[in-house]
């Protein structure tokens, strides 16, 4: 019954600048399959860099990173949602999906777009979509590679509150439907308290894990009071205080 970890992260040293004070040193993390992990911490602590390491795009580190038993760079392509939608403006919505997954059939594209609430937008240019729709399309693109690992880099940044709530509901549905292992970066402990199974708080330079909390209750079903309380606890544990307010 017991399953091994889906994600093994052991970073002995990561120094993107080279020769300076490392961003990470002696970082250890294991994530079981299907778990939603929120990485929170102040700006500049290295959260996005850590996602890049997990995606296999960042290679200037020493240690071991395994996804599904394979080195990160050799593991299947992860789904990745950037801070901005980062769509290719010269490609239509469907071609943005095909850009990362060329073999996608039209039916599968329609299904993915329906999944993220963009039915019928196959031929739309990105600039014709609202900010929220662009994020949805970015999520569909991430899902188009059938990801075992879904990496989310502050997916709700720069969006208004109503749109954030909409997207959070959508992401929670995607987590349940596709059951990927998720690592979600956020500067806001509330995001973690609402959406994650587990929260990891990073701080310092080199960054270290100052808190690793398995969040009580089921993600997406926690009450507003529970979320507020958990967010406050996480903020206290090392997340930026202003983000918790």
């Amino acid at each position, binding site marked *: 019954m017991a399953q091994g970890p889906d994600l093994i992260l052991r970073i002995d040293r990561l120094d993107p600048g080279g020769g300076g004070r490392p961003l990470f040193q002696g970082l250890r993390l294991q994530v079981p399959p299907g778990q939603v992990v929120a990485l929170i911490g102040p700006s500049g602590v290295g959260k996005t860099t850590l996602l890049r390491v997990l995606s296999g795009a960042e290679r200037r580190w020493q240690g071991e990173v395994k996804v599904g038993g394979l080195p990160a760079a050799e593991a299947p392509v992860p789904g990745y949602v950037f801070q*901005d939608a980062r769509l290719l403006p010269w490609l239509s919505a469907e071609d943005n999906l095909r850009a990362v997954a060329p073999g996608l059939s039209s039916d599968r594209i329609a299904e993915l777009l329906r999944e993220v609430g963009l039915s019928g937008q196959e031929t739309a240019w990105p600039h014709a979509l609202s900010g929220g729709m662009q994020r949805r399309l970015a999520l569909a693109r991430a899902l188009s590679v059938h990801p075992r690992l879904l990496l989310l880099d502050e997916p709700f940044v720069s969006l208004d509150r109503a749109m954030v709530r909409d997207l959070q509901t959508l992401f929670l549905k995607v987590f349940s439907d596709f059951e990927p292992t998720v690592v979600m970066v956020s500067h806001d402990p509330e995001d973690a308290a609402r959406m994650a199974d587990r929260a990891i708080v990073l701080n310092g330079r080199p960054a270290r894990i100052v808190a690793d909390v398995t969040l009580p209750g089921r993600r997406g079903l926690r009450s507003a009071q529970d979320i507020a309380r958990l967010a406050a606890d996480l903020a206290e544990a090392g997340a930026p205080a202003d983000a918790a307010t």
Partner: protein
Amino acid sequence: MNRTRNSAAGAAPSGWTPFRLAEGAPAARTLPTRPDLGPRWLELASLPLLLVLWQVSAAIAQSRFLPGPALVASEIWTLAREGTLVGDFAATLARALAGFVLAMGIGTALGIALGRTVWADRLFAPWVVVGLNIPAIVVGMICYISLGLTDFALILAVVINKVPLVTTMMREGVRALSADHDELAATFRMPRARYLRLILVPQLMPYLLAAARAGLSLVWKMVLVFEVLGSDGGVGFRVGLYFQLFDMQGILAYTCCFVAVILALEYGVLRPIEGRVLRWRKDRT
């Protein structure tokens, strides 16, 4: 925001007073979704207007040095029937096309190399500046003196003159490439060919088209000048002959055909390509 929507739908919630503009306050204006380009007929009327102005000027001047459009048209017809017009244009077009293709290819490759490699840019950027500023006629003379009055020398002179311009424009295009899109490609592990086709080329395309448009007019003019300078055929050569004879009708006949070819290229080739390649841009949809 919701209030405005409700009001617009004519379903104001109870107990809610809609906002009202004060008396005399200017009404809110809707921002245009695309710039107002004016009526289409203005563009269609542009060239006929030029012809009318030409005809009126010729009628007023009554000089053999300013023949009207009708006289020039009859001269074009005569030259076309004699066969010289087609032969001259074929020679000039072939030279311009060869110079254009070579210059675009070499300039694009150099621009990408200089844009991508800092040390190469440091080393060769002054060369580009020198190339941009050497007078075209000087390059033409040097090539003719060194290589003789040959087509090869003419095309080489065109290429030398045009390459720095293309290089500069493409280098700027490469410098403006989005690092975010590179990161996207790396994260989703796009193969090199797909990266080039879907990420690199589309970003460079506006610069390539701008270089092509600027380059085409430059190449035409240079080919004509070099043909006047030393050639045994072509539009420039023929215009040079007419110049020696003070034959304004012949000069204008060739000039009009030349302009017609340029317009055909602009509206028949460049604009359709541009429209297709850049159709995704906000200002075009």
